[in-house]
């Protein structure tokens, strides 16, 4: 059995220079450390012509690098920024990007390759050994430091004058609060903002594609349409924030196929309006399979059954997509019959 102690330190034995012959195993310990192997010369060490060849190779690499840098500057000046070129097998790419990248790459790579080739073939390759010393301080150093510290601590009287100590800790503990307080104006308080969207009673459903209000007859069974509330325009300030909550997904399913009763009531002739924002972490969910009536989220694969109240049937979402109650106004346009009755998008602590 081997010992669990530190094996005896087998310091490198005296160098054996007799041309790399393996030393015979020690009678006592065949596993003993034979020490650093003797240095073997490289071709460049013994043949000056080989060394000359290496020198020329290094110089050639540095020269190529210089030429590549000239090429880089020439490409920058001469190639138009929008010029396209076909390079097999990459395809149609920007000529400038390719030329600049390749010349820069070549210039840098050749400097590196030259330096490394130089180091590998011409600089000494004698292996050297450095000694290590323990990181830990010697006992007397440690004792001196400890004494100094005790002396300093005593002279400060921090341990004796408790009042100073405690008030100082108090002051140091309190002042970072100023920094925390300063962060308050990073944003407003949530309030009930996450509970409301732009939808309200009587707002028309406007087709995102055509910017026209939708009529029930526009939507055929199996179709998929996205709508926004009337009055919200792309150029409005705050459009992004509003559409992040109000985006609507409209599908039409044969009323007989709608399983959820409430869902059917809130629909109009089989037209169902669901929030487009996933209840998981808020991706716009709209991978609608018209035969299965499933909607899949492209981000995390939550799957909702739109024919059954948008119930979650797979994936990490925790609750169904909110449905918007819709009807038709006097002019025959689809309209909302109120806001969503629950917050849209990802769940949060105050959602309830």
């Amino acid at each position, binding site marked *: 059995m081997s010992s*669990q102690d530190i094996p005896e330190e087998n310091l490198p034995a005296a160098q054996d220079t007799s041309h790399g012959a393996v030393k015979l195993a020690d009678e006592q310990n065949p596993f003993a450390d034979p020490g650093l192997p003797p240095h073997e010369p490289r071709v460049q060490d013994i043949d000056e012509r080989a060394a000359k060849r290496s020198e020329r190779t290094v110089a050639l690499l540095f020269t190529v690098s210089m030429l590549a840098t000239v090429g880089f500057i020439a490409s920058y000046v001469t190639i138009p920024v929008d010029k396209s070129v076909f390079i097999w097998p990459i395809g149609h790419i920007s000529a400038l990007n390719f030329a600049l990248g390749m010349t820069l790459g070549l210039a840098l790579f050749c400097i590196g390759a030259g330096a490394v080739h130089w180091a590998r073939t011409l600089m000494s390759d004698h292996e050297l050994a450095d000694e290590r010393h323990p990181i830990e301080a010697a006992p007397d150093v440690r004792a001196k430091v400890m004494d100094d510290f005790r002396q300093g601590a005593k002279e400060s009287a921090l341990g004796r004058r408790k009042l100073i100590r405690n008030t100082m800790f108090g002051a140091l503990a309190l002042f970072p609060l100023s920094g925390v307080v300063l*962060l308050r104006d990073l944003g407003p308080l949530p309030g009930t903002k996450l509970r409301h969207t732009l939808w309200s009673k009587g707002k028309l459903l406007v087709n995102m594609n055509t910017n026209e209000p939708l009529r029930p007859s526009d939507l055929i069974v199996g179709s998929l349409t996205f709508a926004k509330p009337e009055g919200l325009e792309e150029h409005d300030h705050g459009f992004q924030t509003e559409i992040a909550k109000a985006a609507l997904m409209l599908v039409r399913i044969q009323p007989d196929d709608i399983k959820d009763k409430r869902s059917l009531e809130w629909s109009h002739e089989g037209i169902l309006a669901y929030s487009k924002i996933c209840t998981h972490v808020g991706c716009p969910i709209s991978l609608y399979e018209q035969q299965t009536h499933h909607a899949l989220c492209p981000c995390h694969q939550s799957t909702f059954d739109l024919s059954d109240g948008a119930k979650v049937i797979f994936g990490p979402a925790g609750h169904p997509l909110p449905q918007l109650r819709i009807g038709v106004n006097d002019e025959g346009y689809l309209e909302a019959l109120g806001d969503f009755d629950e917050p849209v998008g990802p769940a949060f602590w105050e959602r*309830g």
Partner: protein
Amino acid sequence: MSTTTTPESRARGKAPAGERVADWADGRLGIYSLAKANMRKIFPDHWSFMLGEICLYSFIIIILTGVYLTLFFHPSMNEVEYHGSYVPLQGQLMSEAYKSTLDISFDVRGGLLIRQIHHWAALIFVAGMFVHMMRVFFTGAFRKPREINWLFGFLLLVLGMFTGFTGYSLPDDLLSGTGIRFMEGAILSVPIVGTYISFFLFGGEFPGDDFVARFFSIHVLLLPGIMLGLVVAHLILVFYHKHTQFPGPGKTNKNVVGMPLLPVYMAKAGGFFFLVFGVLAAVAAIATVNPIWSIGPYRPDMVSTGAQPDWYMGFSEGLIRVMPGWEINFWGHTLVLGVFIPLLIFPLVLAAIAVYPFIESWVTGDKREHHILDRPRNAPTRTAFGVAWMTLYFVLLVGGGNDIWATHFHLSINAITWFVRIAFFVAPVVAFIVTKRICLGLQRRDKEKVLHGRESGIIKRLPHGEFIEVHEPLSQEQLYTLTAHEQPKPLELGPEVDENGVRRKVKAGEKLRAKLSKGFYGEESQIPKPTVEEYKEITSGHGHH
């Protein structure tokens, strides 16, 4: 020698200019004392010791290219209409951040190249850190005195991930915006404070007008500043501890064998910087990365399939994708476990590998310095743990890319998700057991090799007709290398009852430690290495085969 005289006493112009500059600097900075210890510092030669350099150099390249990009990038979310050179986006509304990124890509000469070098370097930087960390882990290079440097490195990995995340979010394109949306949803899931944090971070409701500017200062100032400090500390410690080395003839725990910094490593390491930069520039010339123009500007109501983060965030994406949608409602509050649990597991996965060195040193009770690296097979439990961890990481990466796997291997996305759900628990265990067995097998093979020599593949026919394979005896270098590792014994608790018949109290912690120690060093966790006696018995007797 001019260096023996003080600069004042020396006549002007006698010493070469370089020496005079050095003398000037030494009088103010004390550089000679520094150089004395470091100029001929020895570095061992091994390719795996250069993985850290890949990271260091790509970090420098990222800073250089990043500074260039800030000259053209506008971290603003003001909506503008695009009228630049990219035709398929003409007249589209987009944020200034997105527009300036398009301008960098299409109108600034070389801007696209620098952008692509920056992004590729970031991907490779984090990949390099990952591989570097695994090298340190599997060779046991994290042991005393390098535990703190291990933590510095780990922090760099984590910070690198988040610097990358804040960076690829800046162009405000459809893909990165989707990632930000995911982050907002994850923050909202935090009980009690989540909603407030989200409102403070985004300056109100998502997406608001602020996050690009805020992420910009985090990405270019806060995180890289901390990282730069950590990198410097990491390097100082590498110098101070001196590099570890693999076992071999002449290499001991008290020396370091290799080439001197000046000139060999100056040329090799310096040259390697240019090699890394050159390769990255060529990669950026050949392959496109994050082509934001074809992804389109961010709109919170639009999305593309295949929405993934950059690879280093992929395992968190896997966690969130495979988690079941648990949600608990009570007293007017919602606990979003389906999002919050992955959010908690995310740091735990990373922490598992970070704290391992401290667990190992507690179990083994080893307080000595270690400068000779372990061969992974000689530390089977550690190696098995590392492989199990990597397996978990890879399984989660598969989960994070389940849609791409589905389309490219013609599989069902639901089946992959279920596979990941099960493999999350099973695969690391299997990997642990299999790896440990492989390590023990390799230890056995080493033992065979030491005792019986190397199988040469040459078949010899003996006079009486028997065929044998000739085994070549190992050289003493090889014998030493294969037997130099130490094999600790497991921790013994000692008898529960002392010699006076008094029951000794054994703390639960101690019992656990003894049990773990047995797992590390028990009979089932290491093959006793060949002893001198065994070797002599075999070699002195009959001719071996």
